[in-house]
């Protein structure tokens, strides 16, 4: 299975854009109010740093995934322990995203439909693309869906232009100071930091060293659009109502009204959302199955789909309400644990250690 640089770009852009837009805006808006767009810029900076560390690390071990080279760097047992930390992340993020996806569909489109069919349908779709296509199938899907997502986001932003009240984004900065703005940056940074998965995907590239450019561009494009969208959301809806809304981007889409004719464009936002969720879930499904297979030294990684898929399906149906699935997970696990440890800390550690090891080897050879 081989993937190209462009596919990496689209995979990262697609999976980051939709999710960050719809899931993390609320927490930034609550923390930084009308300065949330500044938070997004900071989040982008953090994410680019994560991308930098991840690409540097992946380049050192071409043709090896994180699972393989962690054991090389840290030794067998510590390495396995570190991998388990990542597995916790992968095995829990899939059900959570599935749950968030189902909640949104249930709220806006299908209120009386029971949750299980919606979850199962999406899981089946993801299973199909992972099984039949592998990572290059997923890459090709991203090449198709990615541009659609970006066009839809731009359309929404463009159509919302005549709903703007410029004053609503003022006063800039003076209300809050740096701390709330920085706090607001953490949640989106943790979503944009999904670029760290490049450490698993780089092994499938022909030329991983060239891959770093595509990762940066993916994060950058996603970030620029998120900054613009956050600013637009504040400009159109205003901070009085925003912090109580679950899905600000979606609410902005509902307000679009051109010539009193083009209205009720909810469908566009739904397309963005579903496409992005699909790509993200597919990538994670692949990483989880392939990673677990490498970890347990199983040859046929596809077999693991039959285990992972039911597991995440059941886990997705368990949480009782939307607060549990969204807020608790985000605030109690993702931001305080995954962001500093999985995305920044461990890759940085691995990078430093392996650089030291390589230097020692060179010194020994000399």
């Amino acid at each position, binding site marked *: 299975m081989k993937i190209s640089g462009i596919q990496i770009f689209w995979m990262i852009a697609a999976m980051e854009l939709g999710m960050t837009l719809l899931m993390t805006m609320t927490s930034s808006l609550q923390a930084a109010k009308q300065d949330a767009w500044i938070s997004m810029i900071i989040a982008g900076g953090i994410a680019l740093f994560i991308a930098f560390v991840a690409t540097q690390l992946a380049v050192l071990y071409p043709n090896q995934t994180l699972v393989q080279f962690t054991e090389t760097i840290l030794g067998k047992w510590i390495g396995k322990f570190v991998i388990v930390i990542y597995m916790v992340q992968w095995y829990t993020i899939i059900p959570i995203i599935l749950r968030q996806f189902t909640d949104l569909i249930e709220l806006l489109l299908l209120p009386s439909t029971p949750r299980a069919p919606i979850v199962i349908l999406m899981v089946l779709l993801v299973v199909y693309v992972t099984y039949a296509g592998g990572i290059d199938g997923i890459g090709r899907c991203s090449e198709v869906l990615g541009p659609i997502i970006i066009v839809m986001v731009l359309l929404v932003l463009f159509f919302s232009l005549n709903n703007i009240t410029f004053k609503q984004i003022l*006063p800039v900065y*003076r209300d809050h100071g740096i701390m709330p703005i920085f706090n607001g940056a953490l949640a989106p940074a943790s979503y944009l930091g999904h670029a760290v998965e490049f450490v698993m995907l780089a092994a499938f590239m022909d030329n991983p060293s060239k891959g770093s450019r595509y990762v940066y561009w993916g994060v950058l494009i996603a970030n620029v659009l998120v900054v613009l969208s956050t600013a637009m959301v504040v400009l159109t809806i205003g901070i009085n*109502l925003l912090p109580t809304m679950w899905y600000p981007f979606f609410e902005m889409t509902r307000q679009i009204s051109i010539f009193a004719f083009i209205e009720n464009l909810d469908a566009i936002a739904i397309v963005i959302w579903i496409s992005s969720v699909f790509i993200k879930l597919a990538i994670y499904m692949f990483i989880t199955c392939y990673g677990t297979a490498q970890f347990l030294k199983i040859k046929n990684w596809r077999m693991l789909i039959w285990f992972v898929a039911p597991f995440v399906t059941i886990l997705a149906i368990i949480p009782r309400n939307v607060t549990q699935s969204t807020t608790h997970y985000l605030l109690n696990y993702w931001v305080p644990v995954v962001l500093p440890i999985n995305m920044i800390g461990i890759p940085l550690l691995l990078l430093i250690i392996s650089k030291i090891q390589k230097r020692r080897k060179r010194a020994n050879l000399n």
Partner: protein
Amino acid sequence: MMRMQTIYRCLVLLVFIICLTGCWDSIEMEDRAFVMASGFDLTEDGQVEATLQIALPTGLSIAMQGGGATKEPFVVVTDKGREGTDILQHLQEMISRRVFLGHRGVIIFGEAYAREGIDEILDTFLRSPESRYTTFILTAKGVTAKEILNTPHQFLEEIPALGLKKKQQIGISLAVKLNEFLDAIASDGKSPMTGVIQVLEKKADQKIFKLGEAAVYQDNKLVGFLPEEEMKTLFMLRGEAENQNLTAQVKPIEEGFKGTMGVRVLRSKSTIDIQIKDEIPEIMITLEARVVVLENDSKLDLSKEKKLKEAESKFNEQVDQRFVSMLEHIQKEFKADVFGFGNEVHIKHPEYWKMNKDKWKKIYPKIPISTRVDITIIGIGRAQAPPHLEK
């Protein structure tokens, strides 16, 4: 291997077929009742009475064919209850189709209900997924919302609610959408207001809706109405006065001339300057407008520069009077910050706002506001002097 693949494919097909037979959630068009407008009134025993005007798709074609029975293409249902969800159920029980609010164009609050406080139904507007932000809000004056929604069709529109929505979309009278209304309620620095709907009876059976005044709210209670002339100055303050017409008495009444002049505003702008003195903001407002003359019933020959300036200064004077009167109404009588001076203070003096925003309701009525009006006549139409002016 082939066997496995075939079985797998059949399973997938089966799943899709099961799902395509119909969702749990689909409701056919004929099973939906499209609510075009809702109205809320207060009953004598303090309950909320809700009225829905529902469009009849089949009724439209009957009405257009004319002939026999003049059936109205809409249906009105009314019931009362304790709060929104309660009433909604009552109303649904009266209709054979599922109530669908997605196309609602107008929400009308009856005057008595608005004065009492509209909090019962306020939250449903934001929370329910069917509610649209592009719905207009109107306050009924001198008539209940129920009466308005029961009034049959106006000149050109089959369904009165659609006619109302279109009138609001034209935008000459104050048109406040739901999101603007909710935003003002949620805001510390601004008070909500809505357009006003009244009913004029030209003949016994022909009623016409009139829009034009403004209803001023404090939090979620109606506190008063702004007359039309003062409303125009509020438009100018908001910079939204295009297509408004202003009149002024530019000369005293003389033989053969009433001395009035009428202009149409092309563009309007306001500049607001705020200084903090002695812990209170002092506001200086300049209203600017560029107008064209529509009608001149005075001896002023507008082709002469001096006469033009004279007309302009008379306009400045009189519009300023109405402006000051409007400010007195909203500031001292209603104590409602409908323009959003609080927001302006927030933007220009954020530190002061942070300290004082909880006291804004007390500070606002005391703020000294000085005004200046600057109207420029940039066009006088096709004629220079009125036809009945003797040379």
